[in-house]
């Protein structure tokens, strides 16, 4: 199995390299190669899953990548239920999005570069999924960051896209800083970076990390905070929407941002109870913060971006509450319906010639029926309506919170209300209300290369709750202790009802957002993301940039000056002192000679 998995891993890389080197000028060939590689990886993943069915494959293949003394990094693959399912999710959703991209990006100037980027991303993401040790994961972690950077900045001539790409990368790097330190601490404490050895050691001795166990866990968690855009490093994800919409669907909704959660589940055993409770609260906080921000956004992609943040918060919270299987279940269903939502949004944007403001849409229900119905299915799944897949996973999360942490349960329920509210605000304003702009009234359904992936994902969204995904994750990660299901379900459905009624009363046939005036200043805060960006900007300006300015000044005027001047001064001073002795006065010389003779006499003869 392991060689097969390696083929699945390297297929997209080969595609990226081939496109970059040979087929830059031929868009269709590049797209074909990339789509083929993704489908190939999907087929292989399905084959692997069909063979193993969640059983863990023995770690037979161990190619060594780097070996210095006792620092050994192997380049193997992990194949357990967790990675098998994740492989399917990444390659399945990825393939749908690859195909969709061929429709969406057809008119672009650099289709080849785009597909090379997608392939590079697939390679890196599969690498994270298959990684067997921390260093291997870190390598792909960074590569995922690069491919995300390249794809957000696909339209790099637009200043906003170029800035967003840069911001995403640097914010992620801050998280990676903590992640790397965490890895170093694990290595120093346990003497290994291999996940399986770490698990063995931790099982034998849960306190193996010593007094710094909580700190180590939280540093590892930093990686997740960056990649999965958790508070306080959540600021990059909404800006990342500057990239092409399929990229947002694949990377910034379904897969890459979920890598943080995946990593937490992979090394779940490392976290102490204290670390877990911090993780749970960060997740819960992110969930509610992002949901509040989503309520006052008007850009269709931004609404979905904040929704992604909020759902990632749910997943992280679930990990923190001791339910990695639950988190992975939600990750999977979320990958289906959030990718579907983004692709639906992309279909709308495509039909409206790159209009993204929902208040300039409307009336799309009848004009774009496939897009509308699939979008509605995904919305219902996101809001946790039975029998869609989101219902099952969200219900589990609510039950988990109910069983372990009452305040977080309340927060999670409020988030559920807000989710339904902002999603139906979007659906009502953009699809159901009458058209409010010229492009909206002349919109047409997108071509079938785009709608077919929508239908495929819609099927997954509907079926996702019934096909036993949750059971498989429990095999890999252990069964989660849940609270009372009935209460949780009631809370979830109640939240849906409240949110739906509120959205309907406020937005049915509305032409402008009346909530903005009602909320007053609060609305501004929500729309402007609670001014986090401004705060960070200010903080950076007065700490790092200030230090840099001081360092630059110091370098230019003090060190540089002192070095050169010091050296030349020393030479001049030496010369000056020597010059003093050359008086030209014979008496002085005679005196000096006499003194020197006396000195020598005293030193050697007396």
């Amino acid at each position, binding site marked *: 199995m392991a060689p097969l998995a390696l083929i699945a891993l390297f297929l997209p890389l080969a595609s990226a390299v081939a496109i970059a080197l040979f087929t830059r000028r031929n868009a269709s060939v590049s797209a074909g190669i990339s789509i083929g590689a993704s489908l190939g990886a999907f087929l292989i993943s399905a084959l692997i899953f069909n063979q193993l069915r969640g059983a863990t494959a023995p770690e037979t293949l161990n190619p060594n990548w780097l070996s210095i*003394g006792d620092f050994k990094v192997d380049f193997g693959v992990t194949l357990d239920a967790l990675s098998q399912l994740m492989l399917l999710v990444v390659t399945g959703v990825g393939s749908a999005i690859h195909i969709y991209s061929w429709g969406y990006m057809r008119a672009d100037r650099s289709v080849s570069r785009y597909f090379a980027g997608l392939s590079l991303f697939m390679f890196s993401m599969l690498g994270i999924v298959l990684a067997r040790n921390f260093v291997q994961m870190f390598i792909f972690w*960074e590569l995922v960051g*690069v491919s995300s950077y390249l794809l957000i900045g696909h339209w790099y001539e637009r200043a906003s896209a170029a800035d967003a790409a840069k911001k995403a990368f640097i914010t992620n790097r801050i998280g*990676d800083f903590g992640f*790397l330190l965490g890895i170093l601490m694990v290595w120093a404490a346990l003497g290994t970076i291999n996940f399986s050895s770490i698990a063995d050691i931790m099982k034998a001795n849960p306190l193996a990390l010593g007094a710094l166990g909580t700190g180590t866990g939280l540093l590892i968690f930093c990686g997740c905070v960056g990649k999965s855009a958790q508070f306080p490093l959540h600021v990059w994800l909404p800006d990342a929407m500057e990239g092409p919409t399929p990229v947002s669907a694949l990377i910034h909704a379904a897969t890459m941002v979920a890598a943080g959660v995946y990593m937490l589940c992979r090394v779940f055993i490392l976290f102490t109870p204290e670390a877990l409770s911090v993780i749970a609260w960060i997740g819960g906080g992110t969930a509610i913060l992002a949901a509040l921000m989503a309520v006052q956004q008007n850009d269709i992609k931004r609404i979905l971006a904040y929704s992604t943040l909020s759902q990632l918060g749910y997943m992280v919270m679930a990990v923190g509450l001791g339910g990695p299987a639950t988190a992975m279940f939600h990750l999977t269903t979320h990958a289906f319906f959030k990718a579907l939502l983004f692709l639906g949004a992309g279909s709308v944007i495509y039909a409206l010639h790159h209009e993204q403001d929902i208040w300039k849409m409307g009336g799309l229900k009848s004009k774009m029926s496939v897009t509308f119905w699939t979008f509605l299915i995904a919305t219902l799944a996101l809001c946790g309506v039975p029998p869609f897949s989101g219902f099952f996973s969200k219900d589990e999360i609510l039950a988990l919170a109910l069983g372990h942490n009452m305040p977080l349960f309340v927060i999670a329920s409020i988030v559920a209300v807000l989710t339904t509210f902002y999603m139906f605000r979007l659906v009502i304003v953009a699809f159901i209300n009458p058209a409010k702009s010229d492009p909206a009234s002349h919109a047409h359904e997108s071509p079938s290369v785009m709608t077919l992936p929508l239908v495929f994902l819609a099927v997954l969204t509907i079926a996702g709750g019934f096909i036993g995904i949750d059971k498989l994750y429990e095999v890999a990660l252990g069964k989660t202790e849940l609270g009372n299901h009935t209460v949780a379900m009631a809370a979830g459905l109640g939240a849906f009802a409240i949110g739906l009624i509120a959205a309907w009363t406020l937005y049915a046939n509305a032409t402008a957002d009346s909530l903005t005036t009602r909320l007053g200043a609060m609305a501004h805060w929500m729309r402007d993301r609670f001014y986090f960006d401004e705060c960070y900007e200010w903080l950076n300006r007065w700490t790092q940039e200030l230090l840099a*300015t001081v*360092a630059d000044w110091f370098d230019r005027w003090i060190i540089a000056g002192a070095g050169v001047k010091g050296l030349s001064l020393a030479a001049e001073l030496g010369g000056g002192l020597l010059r003093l002795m050359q008086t030209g006065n014979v008496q002085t010389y005679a005196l000096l000679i006499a003194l020197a003779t006396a000195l020598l006499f005293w030193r050697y003869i007396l």
Partner: protein
Amino acid sequence: MTILTYIVLSPLLMAALLLLVPNTSQLRTRWGALLATLVSAILATIAFFKFDPAIAGYQFEQKIPWSSTLGISFHLGVDGLSLGLIWMGAIVSFAACCLSKDIVEREKEYYILLLLMTGGILGAFASLDLVSMYVLHELALVPTFIMIGVWGRGKDRNYAAYKITLYLSAGALLTLAGLIALYIQTGAKSFDLPEIMGFAVNHPISLPAQNYIFPLLLFGLGILVSLWPFHTWAPLGYAAAPTGTAMMHAGVIKKFGLFALLRIALPLMPDAAQLWMQILAWLCLGNILYCGLVALKQKNINLLLGNSSVAHMGIVFLGIASLNLIGVTGAVFVMIAHGLLAALSFGLSGYLYQQTKTLEIGRYGGLLRELPFLGTCMIMALFAGCGLPGFGNFVGELSVFFGAWKEHKVPVIIACWGALVIGSIYMLRAIRAIWHGPITKPDGVMCDAAGNRLPFVILLAALIWLGVCPNWLVRRIEPSLKTILQPFSNRSQAVTPMPIPPVAKR
């Protein structure tokens, strides 16, 4: 004559040959230089593969006695430490020759100096005799000053030449003093390195002597490598130097200080080293953090690259300061990867300068569409510079952090911040300003290096190769470093069990 001798002699002989060429025929000097460096590069690659990692000692040895009374000889040989450096140096010198096309004035003199530089530095790496090592290094160093003064660019070039001469001469002088003191103190009556080493096994240098010789070498060599706070010559010098010189100096010659530290100072003076490495671990943060911050503020491409190159030297120092196999191997790996990277970066910026006569970042913008090849190369170089996997630098930096973590926790934390965060900020700012965004074109013809892509491709390919298959190089470095670090391996076991200071949360 071994293959090694040919690698070193090929550029030197060609330099002598070119002296005979009359000034009128200009074409032949460039072709001659290209030929000689190409021969060195090919031979170095062959030597790389012929080198047997299983043998711990020196290989391809050649010894010609010169002054037996003083114990001086012309003694060449390589081990894992110098092998990679020679390979990298030979490749970089070929690339530097390729990218010197813009030199039209006094072409002959330029190429002769470039060849002297190449032969000198390759010889210095290959030398096993302290005198020939020092002399050959000077042979490589002195042309730098002349080249900046004669073919340099910008209004600051005289000041830069003056400054770099002053600093590097001071560094070389301190080193010389250290080496002579070493010769006297060892009592082996020889400048031959293997002989001194053999002698020192039974007659270690006394502690007081170590305590004054080691700092002489550390700071003398440190100045040559732009150790903070003796670094300011570097960015200025590289901004003023012609392309080929900047590539050779930043890429290859600068590594000599680090090489000599590992070759001479550490194995001969382990006691003093142990003490001074505690200080070096903090000093190197001056390079990594402080120069990283300075780089944030630069508005000239070469000043930015120069500061970043100084920052990378800090990571090498950190690796050396760890005094363990992982860290020092990482340091040597960074030295080699950074040599390729610095040459690539300065080659690219030089190519831009050649066409536009400016390196002010503000004058550029959105050029990726116009210059896809140069842009892609430079973006990859900047990525490599901020330590992304896939390039050699990542492997080295990672090993340095893993190696140094045990000995120097707080410095590693700060270094990680410098390498991961500050590094990526200035690198990405440069990409954003030069290649992304709305298009801003400085005057001048813009050509995407058509017809002269080979040097960039070679350097980039080597860098990626090292990043993808690091074992290929590590396998050769590791055994020699084990020998060099022999004096420390026993000590660390005796000293290690120290309570780990709580540094997790700050």
